[in-house]
Each structure stands twice: as structure tokens, then as C-alpha cells.
């Protein structure tokens, strides 16, 4: 077991456990707090994939903005009485069966990734020599320009949606 594998094992176990913690907490604010730890672990996983920019963005945007949005929504919903209710629906056994079926679908994939695609042009050394953010900038705005512009439209639609659905009185 090499050191990266040990770290990956830790991240894998931690991410799975943390996700379970997020969805099983009775108090939704507790769930959101566990989600924060989850995001930090995901950022750590990105670091091991040599994606430092993505790790930083994960913390800034996910843990910084999206988590705060989650918290506002949780507080908005005023879920005090939810804490006293049953945690899971009565048909949780069906959900469990579906999850087990899902797992059996995925188990044959384990270890079958023996066919590796040819390595891409951005190896670790090349990215580190050029600088992480510089590489992202070079690739994102040349090769992936079209997805980038469509993403701007999706952001615009989110702005429209947030205002039209939640403004108390539209002027």
C-alpha cells in the first residue's frame, strides 16, 4: 500500500461515512455542518489529483457560498417540528433494496478498469511547471470555450429564477 493509496482509502471511507452522516441527522443544521467537513474532504481529494485550483474553488464556492445558501434555506424553512417526526419514510426498505441493486450494478466495475486510455497532454510535471491556474486558464478559454459560455447562461437563468420565484412583491 503506497502512501497515496492509503490517503485515497481514508478519503473514500471518510466521504462515504460523512455523506451518511449528512443525510441521517435529525437536526438539519447538524447535517449541513457535516456537509462542510464533507466538502473539505472533497477538496483534499482534488489535491491528490493535482487539481489545486479546483480544491481552492471547492472551498471558496462550495463551502463558502453554497453551504451558506443551504443554511439560509434550512433556517427559512423553520423545521423545528421536523426534528420530532420520524426520520425516514416508511418505505425505507425499498430505498435500501434499490441502493443494493445499484451497488451490484457497480461491483463488476471494480478492478475492470484495466484498459486505460492514453494519457492526456497535461501531465503533472507540465502543469506544475506552468502553474496550475495558468494551465486552467489556457485550456478553459480556448478548448472549452463553448461549455464556458453556456455555463454563463445557466447562471443567468439561476438569477432570473431566484428573483422571480422568491421576491415578495415584484415591482
Amino acid at each position, binding site marked *: 500500500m503506497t502512501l497515496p493509496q492509503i490517503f485515497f482509502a481514508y478519503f473514500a471511507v471518510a466521504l462515504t461515512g460523512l455523506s451518511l452522516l449528512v443525510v441521517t441527522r435529525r437536526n438539519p443544521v447538524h447535517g449541513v455542518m457535516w456537509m462542510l467537513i464533507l466538502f473539505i474532504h472533497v477538496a483534499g481529494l482534488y489535491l491528490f489529483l493535482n487539481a489545486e485550483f479546483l480544491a481552492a474553488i471547492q472551498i471558496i464556492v462550495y463551502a463558502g457560498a453554497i453551504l451558506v445558501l443551504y443554511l439560509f434555506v434550512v433556517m427559512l424553512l423553520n423545521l423545528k417540528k421536523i426534528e420530532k417526526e420520524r426520520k425516514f419514510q416508511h418505505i425505507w426498505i425499498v430505498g435500501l433494496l434499490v441502493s443494493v441493486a445499484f451497488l451490484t*450494478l*457497480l461491483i*463488476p*466495475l471494480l478492478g*475492470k*478498469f484495466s*484498459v*486505460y*486510455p*492514453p494519457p*492526456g497532454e497535461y501531465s503533472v510535471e507540465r502543469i506544475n511547471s506552468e502553474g496550475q491556474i495558468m494551465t486552467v486558464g489556457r485550456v478553459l478559454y*480556448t*478548448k*472549452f*470555450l*463553448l*461549455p464556458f459560455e*453556456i*455555463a454563463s*447562461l*445557466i447562471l*443567468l*437563468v*439561476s438569477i*432570473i*429564477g431566484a*428573483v*422571480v*420565484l422568491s421576491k415578495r412583491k*415584484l415591482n
Partner: protein
Amino acid sequence: MFETINMKILLPELILICTGLAVILLDLVLRKKETVAFIGVAGALLSAYYNFSLMSLGWSGAVFQNMFVLDGYSSFFKLIFYISLIITIFISLNYIKTERVSSGEYYSLLLFSASGMMIMAGAADFMVLYLGIELMSLSLYILAGIMRERRTSNEAAIKYFFLGAFSSAFLLFGISLTYGLTGTTSIIEVAEALNRLGPAGRNITLIAVIFFVTAFGFKVALVPFHMWAPDVYEGAPTSVTAFMSTGPKAAAFAVMGRVLFYAFGALQLQWSAIIEPLSIVTIAVGSILALSQTNIKRMLAYSAIAHAGYASIGFLPGTQEAFAAMINYLMIYIIVNLGAFAVVVIMRREGIMGEELSDYSGLAKKNPLVAFLMLIFMFSLTGIPPLAGFIGKFYIFMGAVEAGYTKLVIAAVIFSAVSAFFYLRVVVYMYMKEAAEPSVLIVPHSVKLVLAFTSIMAILLGIFPSVLLDFARASLLG
């Protein structure tokens, strides 16, 4: 540093997007709100004009490193989207005012949703595909819930959003599995990589295909991923339901065809085997559950589910001929469905919701023309000759029988006959029941145009079937 990027290819989408941006901004300044709707229609027509002139000039090809294409396949689907968008705008003009929906956001979201659909049809890379799906779906989630005071609208938006986000998760899982196996997200390169992989690698890719089929099954409302459709169709504003049941359904079929035929063509036998039980169960569930509905929007939702099942039979033979029959069917279904929803929209007047079947009682007495047109639409949806719906089903069933799916076609024909019960029940209500207090419907001019267009097409496409089918075949060839 960059290759010359052939921006002309993106011109139709760019025009539509700029129209959407203009609509948001102009709505803030203009006092007369209908103007933004006409700007929307103008933009859509301009975009359509450019699209078809580009195609006829031979400007088709790929752009942005093969991430986006303009070819016959995407152009045919874009024609469906343009029809869906323009007709929806026309039938929304009065409906929006009655429901007091904010018009700027409504029309711009329709335009952005249509742009998303066009990006989906022209996507040649999984990332652009996913972003197009998200753009279309996000606009639709908001549109479904845009009548904020109505609880059913909120419910529709929440259900659609949850299940749509869930299906996006499945889609992303499929894309990431495919990327892990082939090292690329470009659809053509995935097909090449699959040819290089041995049979073991291809079997693993089948799992990714299952994820794709699940995700697209959600969007198209195939059984067992259909649960959201009745509630969402019932709760959303009727014009939005008209849009949702036509354009996005066609768009989902477009991406399904693109991914299954172009990317995973090597696995055609396997995914045909997966889709076969799905389509027959979809037809069955859609037809049977529609029998007990009293709300016409719910009934049309189950009918949409059943029609998605009929259309997906076109995937099974795996040939271009069958796929041409499928897109032919989609075009016919969408035109007729828009006509039916146009009638449902004008049933909504001040004080009367007009969504229950009983509201249609005695419609023939005071509004004979509207009732007759609804009869045409219901007959076409059932598949009664000589209307267009029959032709659509005929070609699809023929293609399936030629490929050996005889039992499936027999079952589909039986369910087609079963569906006559609930379609013709509307006709019975209109012609043979007595109305409580028959009132004359106000049909706005825009809806008159829509009804004329859709009913004439329903009749013409039934009498001259080969026109559309040849156009479909030609589009698929390039």
C-alpha cells in the same frame, strides 16, 4: 493559436439567446407586455431562417473542436423546437395575462429553454450535451413553478426539480464512467475508442449505457421513471405544460438518439434489449392509467407517457430507417399535442379553471368549431386514419415488424385501441353530454392561428405522409 472557428454554425443559437437577453431587458422598460412576446417570436423566426439557410448553403459541420455540429439530424429536431416555441408563445399571450404571470421572465425563460434544446440537438460532446440539458431543464423548473400563488404549481416545480436533478446525477455518472473507459468526452471519439476496446471493455461500457438510458428515461418520462410527469403536467401553467410535453421531450429523444446511435453504436444490440421492455411497459402504463383520469392535463400527461413509449419503439431496430420513422412520429405528435393544449388553454377563463373533463360537456353546442378541432386532435392522438397520428404509428410499427419485433407491435396496437377509450371520452363529453351553463369561448387571434396550423397539419400529414418521412430520412443522411 486557434483554428479559425466557424462561428456561423452557432448563429441560430446565438440569435435565440440574444433574443432572450433582449426580452429580459426590454420587459423592464416596456409598458405593453405583449411586445416582448412578439420580439420572442421574431427572434425565433430569424433563428429558424438562418438555420435553414445555413443548412441549404451547405455550411454544416463541426465547430469548437467538434463540440457542436450543425447537421441534418440537429436541423430536423430544431424545426420541432421552433414549432414548439412559437406555438407556445402564441398560446401564452392571453393565458399569461389571465394568470397574472410576470411576462418578461416567462418569455425569456421559454427562449432560454429553447436555446438549451437547440444546444442539446447540436451537441457532439458530452459536456456540451450536459450543459444544454441543464439549461433547458433549469428554465423549465422555474417555468413550472412560476405561478407562485398556486400550490399545485409549487408542487410541480419541486417534483420536477428533484427528479430532474436526480436524473442529471445519473447522466453525469454515465458520462464520467465513459470518460474513465475511453479517455474522451467527444461523442465521435467515444465511438472510435469503443471500436478499439475488446469485448470486455464494451461490456463495462454497457453499465455506462444503462446510466444514460436511465437519465434520458427520466427526461422522456419512460416507465419506471415517469412518476413526475402527471403531477408536473397538472400543476404547471397550461402553456408551460404544452411546451414541456413537446419540445423538451423531443430534445430528450434527440440526445438519446445522438448518444445511443453515434457514441454507443457498437452496443446497439444490448441497448435495444434494454429499451424493448421499457417501451412496452411505458405504453401499457400510460394507456391504462390514463383511463381513470378526470383532469384533462393529467390525462394528456399519461398520453404523453404512452406516446413516448410508442416513439421509443423506433430505437429498437437500430437502423436509420426506423429512427426516421421515430422522428417523423415525434413531429406529428408534437404538432397535434400543441393543438390539443391550445384548446385546453382557451378553456381557462376568468373564474373557471377548465381543467376537468366535465368542463368539456356540451362544448359542441356553443363552440362547434373548437369542438371539431379537438375531435381532430383526439382522433389523431389515438391513431385513427386518415389523420397524421395513424401515419406516425404505422411507420414505426412497420419498422419494428420488419426487424422482428412482431409481438411488441401487436401489444402496442392493442394498447392503441385501449387508448381510444380515453381520447374519445373527451369527444363524447363534447358532443353528447349536456353542459351545465354553456358559455361561448373567447378564442384570441393568436390561438386561432395555432389551431388552424395544427389541425391543417394533422390532416395534411395524414393524407400526404411521405412528405415528412422523406424529409426525415434526408435529414438523417446529412
